């Protein structure tokens, strides 16, 4: 039995004039999740978040929180609090007054109020800053104030709008861990909007990827990466080599794709359940492609892979050294290009491959992702 979701979003649509920002989104979010809404800018993720907060109202569809319809509940009565992208820390109030604001509105009496403020400040590690004014704080500290201010209300859901986008790279790293730690400490459900896939993959327990207002895929970070639903997902998360082809064999335990673009047949170890002859796409992650020098003979076929499948020849066009790894662009005989990633397990000076080298590229039958759209 699946538990009842904390948040249930049903056929949610939001239009601004003639523009549809969010289209027919249905989604369940469970209690205690760290959920990420991911997508390129303008994909509707922020609008979706603002609808959860009650700052925008849906054109169609509804939002249930704890089974209750929120459609006509104004933002100040929702069990939801938000950390704004700009933090929206009130500049005319001290840190303490900012954090206490929600409790003051709710009429929480004095000794308890101060206790909870101190507790919240301790949670975000701002104990000594209670009497400071926001303009005496750094960007990261202001964000912590916003976080404490939202969490002190003990919301059912905490909404975070691009929480790391305004921080510099180093601080972003720290805040990532901080946010995860705080979420684990308080156990509140977090819903975060981000355009940064690394952020989503590193922090979220589950992600929803959106594009042009529509949901593309909802999955755990690893599933999103390893089992993308379609070309958009495969391409947005990480980098991928995409080859168009025709499904020629589709059995329960294996399938074969003939790709003129690649100039080879692709063998996968699972069925695709698409009609044979259908156009499909094979997605190959650069780190899942193996590269070997072309010394005359082809490398031996892999176990379970028919002769001549999952194997192409090419020439290294260029290599880009990135420190921990090197990215090679290999020109295939078909004219297409394949990106290949190699970890620099030894010092780069001892490099194995150079530009201009002729190479074999091969991959395991379980590596390609077969995409129907």
């Amino acid at each position, binding site marked *: 039995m699946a538990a009842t979701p904390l948040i249930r979003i049903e056929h949610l649509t939001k239009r601004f004039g003639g523009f549809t920002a969010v289209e027919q989104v249905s989604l369940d979010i469970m209690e205690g999740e760290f959920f990420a809404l991911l997508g390129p800018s303008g994909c509707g993720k922020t609008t979706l978040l603002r609808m959860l907060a009650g700052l925008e109202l849906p054109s169609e569809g509804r939002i249930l929180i704890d089974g209750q319809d929120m459609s006509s509940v104004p933002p100040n009565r929702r069990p939801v609090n938000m950390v*704004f992208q700009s933090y929206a820390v009130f500049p*005319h109030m001290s840190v303490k007054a900012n954090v206490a604001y929600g409790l003051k509105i709710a009429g929480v009496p004095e000794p308890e109020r101060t206790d909870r403020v101190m507790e919240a400040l301790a949670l975000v590690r701002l104990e000594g800053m209670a009497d400071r004014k926001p*303009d005496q704080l750094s960007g990261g500290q202001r964000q912590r104030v916003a976080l404490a*201010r939202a969490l002190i209300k003990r919301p059912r859901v905490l909404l975070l709008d691009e929480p790391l986008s305004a921080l510099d790279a180093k601080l972003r790293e720290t805040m990532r861990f901080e946010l995860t730690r705080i979420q684990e400490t308080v156990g509140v459900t977090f819903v975060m909007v981000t355009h940064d896939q690394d952020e989503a993959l590193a922090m979220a327990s589950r992600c929803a990827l959106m594009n042009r207002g529509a949901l593309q895929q909802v999955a755990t970070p690893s599933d999103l990466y390893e089992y993308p639903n379609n070309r958009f997902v495969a391409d947005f998360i990480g980098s991928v080599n995409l080859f168009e082809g025709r499904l020629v064999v589709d059995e329960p335990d294996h399938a074969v794709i003939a790709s003129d673009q690649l100039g080879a047949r692709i063998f996968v170890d699972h069925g695709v359940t698409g009609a044979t002859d259908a156009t499909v796409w094979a997605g190959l992650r650069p780190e899942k492609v193996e590269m070997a020098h072309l010394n005359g003979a082809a490398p031996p076929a892999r176990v379970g892979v028919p002769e001549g499948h999952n194997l192409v020849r090419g020439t290294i066009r260029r290599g880009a050294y990135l420190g921990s790894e090197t990215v090679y662009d290999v020109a295939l005989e078909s004219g297409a290009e394949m990106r290949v990633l190699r970890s620099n397990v030894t010092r780069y000076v001892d490099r194995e491959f150079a530009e201009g080298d002729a190479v074999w590229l091969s991959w395991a039958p379980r590596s390609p992702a077969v995409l129907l759209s």
Partner: protein
Amino acid sequence: MEQEWRQAKRPFAAIIGPPGFWLALFFLVPLAIVWAYSFGRTLGLTDIAITGTLDNYARVMDPVYLDIFVKSLGVAALTTLLCLIIGFPVALAITFAPPRAKAWLLMLVMLPFWTNLLVRTYALMAVLRNEGYVNTVLGWGWDGLRAMGLSLSAFQPLPLLHNNFAVVLGLVYVNLPFLILPLYAALDRLDRSMIEASLDLGAGHLRTMREIVVPLALPGILSGLLITFVPALGAYLTPDLLGGPDSQMIANVIERQFKRANDWPFGAALSFMLMYLTFIAIAGQAIVARRRRARAGA
């Protein structure tokens, strides 16, 4: 970077010279003469001897004139308050209107501001007088009630014109755009996520206005209040045309000293008292604004 004037004496003289000269001769000199007159007394019909007397200022303290000062301050304050009450929701609506509507609304607010003050005051007279539009419409309604059989006496027009009510109404009418525009500017600068954060944290709209919007927009609101208060305090035309015998404001008294009573030294003293009051209002606003800025630490 600004240039030191000594490094370019000739361009400096050419640029600052003419306006500086104009301001000195045609503004400061006249003001200085009035100031000097305020310490003088009339000799005969036309001559004024500057004797250094403070009699004119002493006369300002006379209850008759003091009353007028107090009344002028009260009328200006009431006008400003009414403009704020009327103008705030209007400015709020303009701030959150879609771009096209916003441009039109701003236009609509500004157009009366560009329209001749006398024309606007005259338009208001036509509305308010005994035979004016308001009284005529009320009279029709009254006659209608009488025709329906209610035993009522003949319609007595409401005294809407030539009284204090008309003066305040007229000042509000004339000055409202002065307040709406700065109020709009202040609200428009406000970061909307501040309002959203307050709503999100459980505050209602009125509470958000009181705790977040008004404090954050306060510098703009204060300068708007000042822009309304100062002209209202020194208003001449509105009390003159719309007011009754007891609606005199400072400016009307000053005018009388210069044009009819021919007591220029006393008029000069009154003028400078009015000017000092204006300066006090400006300084007050500046001090409050600076203190707030200091407290915010920005």
